[in-house]
């Protein structure tokens, strides 16, 4: 809680949930889509005075097939790799127009939305550039760990050993051979005011992190674990459950980096074994006991490192 002192924002509580919905029903996402669920929750946390710039991907496709749109707030899509640059332009323009008196509402939040492909791969450069330039927007990365819009191809966010259509299983392959890119940590390395991880299974946490992102001056990056029943080969009803297990097993730790300080909350003292996470998903069903041990070791080491960052952040408090 200490780190929250650096950051003032209006907290959402279970008793006072905003009624606002940024999206109308009728979008074409798969049943049980964790990404659309997380998007709905995140934008609930912001309210109607929001502009969204969306990278190409599932969200863009399922929410805007002409002549219908699910969006109740201004929304713009240009291409796949450039959402952060488009958002930079929107933000810069509004800054100029406010200064020149042609706009009066300074409270509009600009949100840039991308999937893991649009964020950690093809859109990585434009995002990094925008963060370095300090544009005042929130970037929401909905990470479903593969290119789902084009039919489940690997991305740099696909976890090690997972099956996708471009890292298929075969006598010469047992899924993805490379580790998942640690995007939140790379984003934190840009020294922006706010970075957080979140999941739709923790909706209040997610909404409040988005609110914190809106409250800081400068860029905020929120990485959202977005279960995809279709691509992960699991039943539609399991999206929330799998996100809970991911957090409880430390596969996906929830944390924040506030003005450079790591804050780790909700991590369990007795985490579930990672096998609990794998067994729910078809994309991991080929894993050997050795594979699971490899991942368990990695997850433990990553968690240790994260906690040491958090301790370090804590220790340095109050130093001149």
């Amino acid at each position, binding site marked *: 809680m200490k780190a929250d002192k650096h950051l003032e924002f209006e907290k959402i509580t279970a008793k006072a949930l905003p009624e606002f919905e940024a999206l109308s029903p*009728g979008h*074409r996402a*798969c049943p*049980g889509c964790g990404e659309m*669920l997380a998007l*709905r929750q995140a934008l609930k946390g912001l309210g109607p005075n929001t502009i969204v710039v969306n990278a190409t991907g599932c969200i863009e496709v399922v929410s805007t097939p002409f*002549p219908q*749109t699910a969006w109740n707030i201004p929304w713009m899509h240009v291409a796949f790799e450039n959402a952060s640059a488009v958002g930079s332009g929107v933000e810069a323009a509004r800054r100029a127009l406010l200064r020149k008196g042609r706009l009066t509402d300074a409270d509009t939040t600009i949100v840039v939305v991308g999937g893991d492909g649009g964020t950690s791969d093809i859109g990585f450069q434009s995002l990094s550039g925008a963060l370095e330039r300090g544009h005042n927007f929130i970037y929401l990365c909905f990470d479903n760990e593969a290119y789902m819009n084009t039919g489940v191809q690997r991305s740099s966010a696909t976890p090690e050993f997972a099956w996708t259509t471009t890292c298929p299983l075969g006598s010469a392959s047992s899924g993805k051979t490379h580790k998942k890119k640690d995007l939140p940590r790379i984003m934190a390395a840009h020294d922006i005011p706010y970075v957080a991880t979140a999941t739709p299974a923790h909706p209040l946490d997610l909404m409040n992190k988005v609110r914190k992102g809106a409250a800081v001056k400068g860029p905020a990056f929120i990485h959202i674990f977005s279960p995809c029943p279709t691509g992960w080969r699991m039943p*539609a*009803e399991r999206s929330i459950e799998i996100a809970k297990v991911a957090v409880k097993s430390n596969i996906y730790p929830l944390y924040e980096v506030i003005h450079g300080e790591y804050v780790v909350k909700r991590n369990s003292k007795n985490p579930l074994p990672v096998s609990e996470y794998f067994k729910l998903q078809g994309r991991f069903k080929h894993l050997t006991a050795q594979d699971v041990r490899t991942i368990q070791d990695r997850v433990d080491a990553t968690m240790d490192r994260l906690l040491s960052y958090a301790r370090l952040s804590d220790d340095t408090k109050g130093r001149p």
Partner: protein
Amino acid sequence: MIEIRFHGRGGQGSVTAAELVAQAAINEGKYAQAFPSFGPERRGAPVSAFLRVSDSQIFLREKIEAPDVIVVLDASLIELVDVFSGLKAGGSAVMNCPPHKRKSLMPWNESYRLVTVDATQAAMNNIGLPIANTAMIGALLKGMGLIKLDSFQMPLQTRFGRLAEKNFQSMTQAFHDAQIAEPSGEAPLSSPAQELDFSGIIEKEALMAWKSLALGGDILEPGNSARFLTGTWRMTGKPVFHSDACTKCGLCRLFCPEDAIFRDADEQFIYNEDYCKGCGQCARECPKGAITMEEEAWV
């Protein structure tokens, strides 16, 4: 040449069925084409696939507008999509349909030949999953001849590997179970389907003249996707809310990707059947077990 249109839902394997028939036909030395319709729809949404089979080379690469045969993998689609659209008079409709629902199809039997089979049951019996696409191929073969059952061994093997045999059994069972009803009367001018309301279907409103488009193709009406009723995608049942057990915590509403759960006038949580896709997350996550997923009556 025979032209066949498959109707199913995203994820049910309509495209795979069309491809398998094409491969089997090609293996017999015939000519065939199989192709999907492309769009933004996801799992559960009505989709179609197309198939041409011919003894001579096919010189057509256009959609099938007037099929000789339709294959409907999911009988609930009849209410949602004009599956009979363009079907030639006297043409065949191969329908997946449990025996007790067969009667409801009879109005179409006036003008069309009906081939009915409980393909979902055949799939359950043989594969253990309600994936009816290969069984529907069995019914198609029974109704139309076209290709020998045995010609599917190799395409099934390529496609399904160790599940090939079970799929072949499912196909074979459906082949034997399928019932054929020849058209009973004169071909009427309109199909009964035309009297149904297709208000949830996008094609009806999509065409606009360029002069009536907003600048750059912007969509000016916020949230008008609410006119697209994704409730038609439900395949696996609907949520039933048990108010006696409900503590009104509201988690179900927060966990609905569709925003399809709301409170009624009596402050009870209920679901919106127009949009609920039947994912079942609300039932699974309700801390009090106050929501259950139940099968829907098929009209």
